[in-house]
């Protein structure tokens, strides 16, 4: 019976994918690759075919790539119906249909939700609308920001020194623009990598001529009579004159359209089981709704079965492939999503890479190289084992670190390495901010069974 259903589904079922970016595309390709011959519909709120986002804050800003030419390479023909430029507006779980913003409905037999995240906007709408104030998430954002920067800017203020903000600051400096970065924490990247590594990132900013202001928040964006941004007011009462402001305060998960649907969706994403099947609001797994990519949150065996939300490129690909596989295979062939978290960033000429979940670590050891040279391998430890690693211009050692994490290798790391320095012999506090304080977007969100996480409150949707 169940096997018959899967056979039928594979042959002539209707699969709908909401979200037409990296995860949506790779899922669609995997479905076809694995023999799905039914109807396939991809729904995307942007009018463009799937494109790659990482270049938007790097080569596109520098003018080395055009924002129009970042399409994702296709692995195969899809034979799919594309509904682009129309966001999904609602979900009817019982009737098995997706409601679109233009009033249309799309029926499905199985659904994949890959709606991702969007940039967190500046919280004061009238200030956010000032000419010269930008966020950077989409191709349109990149086009607008690039044009503005090309037209010449006296000073750019970047609000938030996470990865995206730091990359924007780096690109602007490379273009020779004056840049001020305002960061609430004590250093850049602290949410993702902690204060020790953040201090290294701060040096990078300073060395490259960024006017870095830490432990400040932006209290107001000031416009001129023409509605153009003119200055940025900081909590230390200083004022920075600027004609471009890039708001880089992390991201928000695109789950609002699911409110009231009965799915377990909220600001932290959509929870799923290890096989990418979404939970409903009662915490019961659904049969026909799957999730993948930035919007998903799933338990990871290597990290205490905590529910991880990963805004990582590689995660989107791996989770999409697993979800797609599980959507059209018999129950016994399903695979768990067990991707090792990993991300990269390039800023100020430095290649930063990480594996594992750094914010889970409470201690850090530099096992190779030195932070003073800004070339090193650092590993994070938690409860006596290695849980993450970060490299600055030393990525070739990362594979080893990944294996250490997979094997639950002991921490502190006692053995010598080919470039162990005296400074790295003792573990130090990794210095992550209190997880209950808001940040501008760590690249990993931990939730679930962490004792540090006391703020997760279930709020039923309004039916």
């Amino acid at each position, binding site marked *: 019976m169940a096997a018959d259903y899967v056979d039928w589904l594979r042959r002539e079922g209707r699969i709908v994918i909401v979200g037409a970016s990296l995860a949506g595309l790779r899922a669609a390709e995997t479905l076809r690759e694995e023999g799905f011959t039914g109807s396939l519909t991809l729904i995307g709120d942007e009018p463009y075919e799937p494109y790659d986002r990482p270049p938007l804050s790097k080569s596109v800003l520098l003018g080395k790539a055009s924002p129009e030419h970042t399409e994702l390479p296709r692995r195969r023909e899809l034979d799919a119906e594309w509904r682009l430029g129309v966001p999904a507006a609602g979900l009817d779980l019982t009737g098995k249909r997706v409601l679109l913003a233009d009033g249309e409905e799309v029926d499905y037999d199985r659904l994949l939700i890959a709606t991702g995240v969007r940039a967190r906007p500046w919280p004061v709408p009238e200030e956010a609308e000032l000419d010269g104030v930008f966020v950077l998430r989409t191709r349109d954002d990149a086009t607008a920001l690039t044009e503005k920067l090309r037209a010449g800017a006296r000073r750019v203020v970047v609000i938030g020194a996470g990865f995206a903000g730091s990359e924007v600051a780096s690109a602007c400096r490379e273009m020779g623009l004056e840049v001020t970065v305002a960061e609430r924490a004590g250093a850049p990247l602290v949410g993702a990598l902690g204060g020790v590594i953040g201090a290294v990132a701060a040096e990078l900013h300073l060395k490259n001529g960024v006017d870095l202001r830490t432990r400040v928040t932006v209290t107001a964006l000031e416009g001129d009579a023409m509605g153009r941004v003119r200055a940025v007011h900081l909590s230390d009462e200083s004022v920075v004159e600027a004609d471009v402001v890039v708001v880089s305060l992390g991201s928000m998960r695109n789950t609002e359209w699911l409110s009231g649907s009965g799915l377990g969706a909220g600001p932290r994403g959509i929870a799923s089981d290890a096989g990418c099947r979404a939970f409903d609001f009662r915490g019961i797994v659904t049969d026909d709704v799957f999730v993948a990519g930035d919007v998903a949150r799933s338990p990871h065996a290597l990290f205490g079965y905590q529910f991880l939300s990963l805004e990582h490129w590689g995660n989107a690909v791996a989770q999409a492939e697993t979800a797609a596989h599980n959507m059209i295979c018999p129950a016994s062939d399903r695979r768990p999503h067990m991707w090792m978290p990993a991300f990269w960033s390039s800023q100020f000429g430095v290649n930063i890479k990480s594996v594992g979940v750094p914010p889970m670590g409470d201690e850090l050891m530099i*096992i*190779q*190289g030195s932070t003073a*040279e800004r*070339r090193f*391998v650092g590993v994070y430890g938690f409860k006596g084992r290695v849980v993450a690693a970060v490299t600055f211009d030393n990525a*070739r*050692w990362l*594979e*080893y670190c990944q*294996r250490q994490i997979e094997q639950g290798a002991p921490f502190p790391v006692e*053995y*010598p*390495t*080919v*470039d162990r320095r005296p400074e790295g012999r003792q573990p130090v506090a990794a210095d992550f901010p209190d997880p209950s304080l808001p940040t501008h977007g760590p690249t990993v969100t931990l939730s679930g069974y962490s004792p540090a996480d006391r703020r997760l409150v279930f709020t039923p949707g309004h039916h």
Partner: protein
Amino acid sequence: MTQPSLVARITDFANRADPYPLYAELRRTPVLHEEEGEPYVISSYWDIESLLHDPRISSDAANMTAAGADELQSESTGLPPSFIRLDPPEHDRLRRIANSAFGPPHEPRRVDDMRGELHTIVTELIDGFAGRTEVDLVDQFAYPFPVTVICRLLGVPREDEPRFRSWVDPLVASLDPETRQSAGPEFVQAAQEARTQLGMYLAGLVEERSKDPRDDMLSDLAAGKGPDGAMTMMEVLSTAVLLLIAGHETTVNLITNGMLTLLRHPEYLQRLREDPELAVNIVEELLRYEPPVQLVPQRTCITDIEVRGVTIPKGSRIWLMLAAGNRDPERFKDPERFDPDRDDLQHLGFGSGIHSCFGAPVARLETQIALAELARRLQDPRLVADPPPYRPNAVLRGPRHLTVTFDGLNP
């Protein structure tokens, strides 16, 4: 009578033509240590991969304390150690500077811009076969090719190439441990003399280039474009000699093994003739199937390490059997088959980790062009002897001669 050790059988010249059955035997004991003084031999793909990325593994000869440590060591040039025999941070600094003269981001076009020149060199070498129906592809093609390429890369003036070659040939020959053992004192003397001459010549050229830089590697090495600045004169010399030596016999073997393999698999020779683009896949599969560096014999561990439950004591000699890992059935489907159409081809032919082959982009291009042109121009090429005679070297394994007959040359 006791069976000789597996390591002894691998180094035994009698098994040079086909060591692969021995490698299969080796993989049955993935961490093999036959007796005191013998190396720890690692032969499965995943273990090799993992040790190539392991920061407890050193390439620095000074860390090797085990007996017989220097038996396979070949670098005795009188120069400071080059980065292939160094650990970070020294390795990283020298390799970064070398790379700033060779690849992206400072010289993104260095290799690709040589495409036309490589093509010309290959064409001239093949034109030299005119009027004959039998050639030795080693002596008349594969051997002269890489030296010419390195000359152009470094920036050796054309008119000096013959002189340069006359020093390089005895130097390279002297690196082969068996040749060295069997040679008389005059051979050793000649090699030493060549080394001195080459060193003096290069030093003069580096001096010239630092005063009057051109678009070549020696100028860049002496100028130091990257954030690490320039190399010292001695460092430039040892890097130049490294590129010469490491880029020579390996490339010769890759090309020769390549032609041999294609002649044994004529369907692919035919396909390559019709579609030169196939050379890319063919070269990658060759690097898996017949890697020019069969094993990495110069690693040690700086602390006791455990591999598959076996403890390898600090200072031991470790052999990473790249050619055995490349045919590990746990990694590659149907590994004993030469199949350029495989879609999963992450071979160990260039190693991996921080010491992964520096010259790989050049080696790839040289071999792609060489094989595609040989396939296109030789009319009905045939092997004269199969297997052909091999060189003694077990590490840099390849035919000594590869005599091929053919009906004529296509233009």
